[in-house]
């Protein structure tokens, strides 16, 4: 767990980020490619739901089988990994790792706002993840699978989701500003 000064030292050796618009074009071309090859776009939370279903199944198969939400992944002899999103997410891990290793931005580190301690940050990160996890399941997707992918196909519900995400985040941002500023 490194300190702020370690992080600053790190920053000196980092490769610069891509221009946001060029990164956006690159991301858009990746997305376009998946549409042309697979007929569908990118995602993240769907694969995490499958992994969660797998872990929960290891602890309590009866609960998972009876559950109206998670049970669906195993219905009719289905396998937790039998979805291209699971393989895609494995690729995201490798791609993120490669990106970090080739840019000097890899390193064990707790990123946090200037007023937040390490433990508090980890707690709030977990809480944020929990809330986002509930929201993503309710909306059947996240910023990748709904906003980005659905946005590019002009899906009405995905656009509604995207504006709701920004709305929810901006509405709460003022009240949680001590976490980040």
């Amino acid at each position: 767990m490194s300190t702020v000064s370690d992080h600053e030292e790190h920053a000196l050796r980092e490769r610069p980020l891509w221009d946001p618009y060029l990164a956006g074009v690159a991301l858009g071309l990746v997305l376009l490619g998946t549409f042309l090859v697979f007929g569908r776009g990118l995602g993240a939370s769907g694969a995490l739901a499958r992994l969660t279903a797998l872990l929960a199944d290891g602890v309590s198969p009866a609960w998972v089988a009876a559950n109206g939400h998670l049970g669906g992944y195993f219905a009719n002899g289905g396998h937790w990994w039998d979805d291209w999103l699971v393989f895609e997410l494995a690729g995201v891990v490798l791609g993120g790792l490669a990106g970090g290793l080739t840019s000097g931005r890899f390193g064990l580190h707790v990123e946090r706002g200037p007023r937040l301690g390490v433990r508090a940050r980890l707690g709030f990160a977990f809480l944020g993840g929990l809330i986002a996890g509930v929201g993503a399941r309710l909306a059947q997707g996240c910023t990748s699978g709904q906003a980005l992918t659905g946005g590019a196909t002009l899906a009405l519900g995905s656009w509604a989701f995207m504006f709701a995400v920004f709305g929810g985040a901006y509405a709460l941002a003022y009240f949680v500003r001590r976490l980040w500023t």
Partner: protein
Amino acid sequence: MMPVHPTTWLAYALAILAGFAFGFVLERAGFGSSRKLAAQFYLRDMTVLKVMFTAIVTAMLGLTLLRALGLLDFDQLFVNPTFLGPQIVGGLIFGAGFAIGGYCPGTCVVAASTGKLDALAFLLGIGAGILVFSGLYPVIGGFARSGGGERVLLSDWLRLPYGVVAILVTLLALGMFFGAEWIERRMAAPPSAAKKTADDEPAPQAS
């Protein structure tokens, strides 16, 4: 005619490749940093908006062009079904989680891959959230499934031709980009600090 729909083993290999490119680009966009992502919600760094809408417009225009050329069967594409109520409520909840945790699911996977332990905590949180949602499913499942789940495009809703909506979305994005650049200039005071603020946002206070 696209999409191609490759057979299984090739599909899985290509899925890993697509994910690799996705993760790599997210890292290079700076989305492995929760502080950079959260700065979007304090108007100090508009990278999230710029990258997202550039990507949406790029893919959308590509799909539109290939469809117009007769190379793509648009009806074969998966279009997220519309469940307006759950998507709006889910989006508001999701946005709150994003503001508190500083990540979304895809970006937290990238950040965790580069060693960010807070991203790992967010990732565990998502798993907990999925379990909470599943536990509540007997109560909220009815609402979660409400809204029809039909294939509704913005163009159906606005009763405009698809191509016209694609142009309108492009113009909307361009308008937001001009707005984003203006906001970043306004928020970056003194002006000489603008570049640094955008790259390493926000600079930790010297101790």
